[in-house]
């Protein structure tokens, strides 16, 4: 039916955009000052003129730009994103190793911020001028303005030296490796601080959003009808009003996936979390261009995927869109 058509349209659009990202990547690496052959030679630790000439031939740098672009795109379709001299590994493998850790972090921060943000918003919407509501407003302003890496450092300071009850670096306890359930618990313990740091920014935003939408919803006719029917308050809010509060949050959360991912770069750097963000930091330090550009591409893939999922969820949550009648 038309859902299938819609999704395939979106996938085609996504394909086009990702192709454009690859072309951008190609242009960036060629527009950057410095000869790529010299850069590679530099990464290898220096090379003679002969070796550099050989590198030019090997990487096709002696060919025309258009030919080089097609070679690059051809390589990418076979999963060849280049080779990282610093990590001494193909870039694709590197990214494959790092994606899970980043997804744990980003998804738990996302879940945390949507749940807590919505709850705070709902509670404060019930008494928009109450003390709790004003507290939430202050928290949301503060969460918006605090640099995420600074919040991370402050939490690291708090739990690293003042009140050391949580691990502050890495993803597992390296000194005491664990297996099975103990391993899962270990990772979860290490996840608390990074996920909280990243989540706080979005708790701030979503609580504000939920508050405004809940205040609107609570004055809407359908809520008055539900109350007039004698439904208990928990069902009026939890079922009728919540649905219309969640729609904008789901939309914004989906659209912000890219921001969340970029925030993860900073948070992972603070807590030495071994994900893509940490990889970005390391590849920036080493001027490891192939890795950096591949991360940019894969983050675009993740953002695209998040957009498509958001669109689907949106259709599920909002019946008006699902039926296709506008």
């Amino acid at each position, binding site marked *: 039916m038309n859902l299938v058509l819609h999704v395939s349209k979106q996938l085609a659009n996504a394909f086009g955009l990702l192709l454009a*990202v690859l072309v951008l990547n190609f242009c960036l690496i060629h527009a950057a*000052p410095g000869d790529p052959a010299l850069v590679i030679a530099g990464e290898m630790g220096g090379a003679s003129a002969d070796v550099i000439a050989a590198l030019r031939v090997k990487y096709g740098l002696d060919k025309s730009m258009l030919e080089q672009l097609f070679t690059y795109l051809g390589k990418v379709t076979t999963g060849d994103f280049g080779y990282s001299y610093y990590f001494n590994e193909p870039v694709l493998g590197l990214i494959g190793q790092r994606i899970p850790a980043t997804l744990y972090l980003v998804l738990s921060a996302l879940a945390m911020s949507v749940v807590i943000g919505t709850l705070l918003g709902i509670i404060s919407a019930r008494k928009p001028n109450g003390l709790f509501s004003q507290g939430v407003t202050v928290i949301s302003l503060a969460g918006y303005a605090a640099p995420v890496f600074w919040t991370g*450092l402050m939490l690291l300071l708090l739990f690293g030296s003042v009140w050391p009850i949580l691990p502050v670096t890495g993803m597992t306890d390296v000194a005491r490796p664990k297996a099975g359930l103990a391993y899962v618990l270990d990772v979860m313990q290490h996840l608390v601080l990074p996920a909280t740091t990243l989540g706080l920014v979005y708790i701030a935003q979503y609580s504000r959003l939920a508050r405004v939408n809940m205040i609107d919803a609570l004055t809407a006719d359908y809520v008055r009808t539900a109350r007039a029917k004698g439904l208990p308050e928990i069902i009026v809010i939890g079922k009728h009003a919540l649905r219309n509060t969640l729609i904008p949050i789901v939309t914004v959360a989906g659209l912000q996936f890219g921001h969340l991912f970029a925030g993860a770069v900073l948070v992972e750097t603070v807590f030495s979390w071994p994900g893509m963000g940490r990889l970005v930091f390391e590849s*920036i330090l080493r001027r490891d*261009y192939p890795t*950096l550009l591949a991360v*940019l591409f894969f983050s675009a893939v993740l953002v695209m995927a998040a957009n498509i999922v958001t669109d689907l969820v949106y259709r599920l949550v909002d019946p008006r869109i699902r039926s296709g009648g506008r």
Partner: protein
Amino acid sequence: MTTIKSTAVKPDTTMLPARAATSPIAAALRQFARSPAGVAGAVVLILIILATLLGPHLYGVDPLDIAGAPLTPPDADAWLGTDYLGRDILSGLLQGGRATLAVGGVAALITIVIGVTMGSLAGFFGGPIDTALVKVTEFFQILPPLLFAMVLVTLFGQSLVVVTLAIGVVSWPSAARLTRAEFLRLRNLDFVKASRAAGGGNGHLILRVVLPNALPPIIVSATLAIGVAILFEGGLSFLGLGDPNTMSWGLMLGQNRNYVLDAWWTVTFPGAAIFIAVLAISLIGDGINDAINPRLRKRG
């Protein structure tokens, strides 16, 4: 013809001072003054700007000089302590604020100029131009902005100019979407049709007729863009991608972050400076929003 035009302009200019009292800007300013949060934000921001402009002269310690032993806690000599090289933190804050605020302001300006140009062209013309520009905007939106900025700075060099341009180049899509929506809303209204019927060209219609009416939300978004750009500069510098030769709040955080557990003051103060500045700017943004969007004022 020309003489008629010039005489037509004259009465207008003489009337300007009289009109200023009831001009929309004055009205908005009065409205803004009624928002305590907005005024508080403006006062704090002005204090910060004054501190960065006058502070370095008054405090008299060079932020790049070794002022004492490395990682000295705050004391009578170095009020906020010293960093890992023994440089004075307070002096760094005063001097570094200049670069941070300048990057924020200029990058926000670039963001708004690109965003408004793209958005107004797309929204005004519609059709294939709109489709094409929306595609370009969409393309920039799937690249995580901070990550894209990191790539640009890594490739094109760590100078203040590159950092500022990079932040501007990656941040414009939301301004473009906002402007486009406003133009779509306004372009078929009667006053625009009337101006077109009176012979106004596209350039005149965009710049003189539609844009002024689209400005209120753009001004708010421009204010908030300054805060976002400051956070971006901080993030880039924190990752070691700032200009290493220019003191900035982000640079202080990035350079000292490995010493956080031994010397809390080295990162706490620069981060707090960014926090307070961005908070002040977003309060101003909220205040402006309330002042120029009276319809929204009653909402939470």
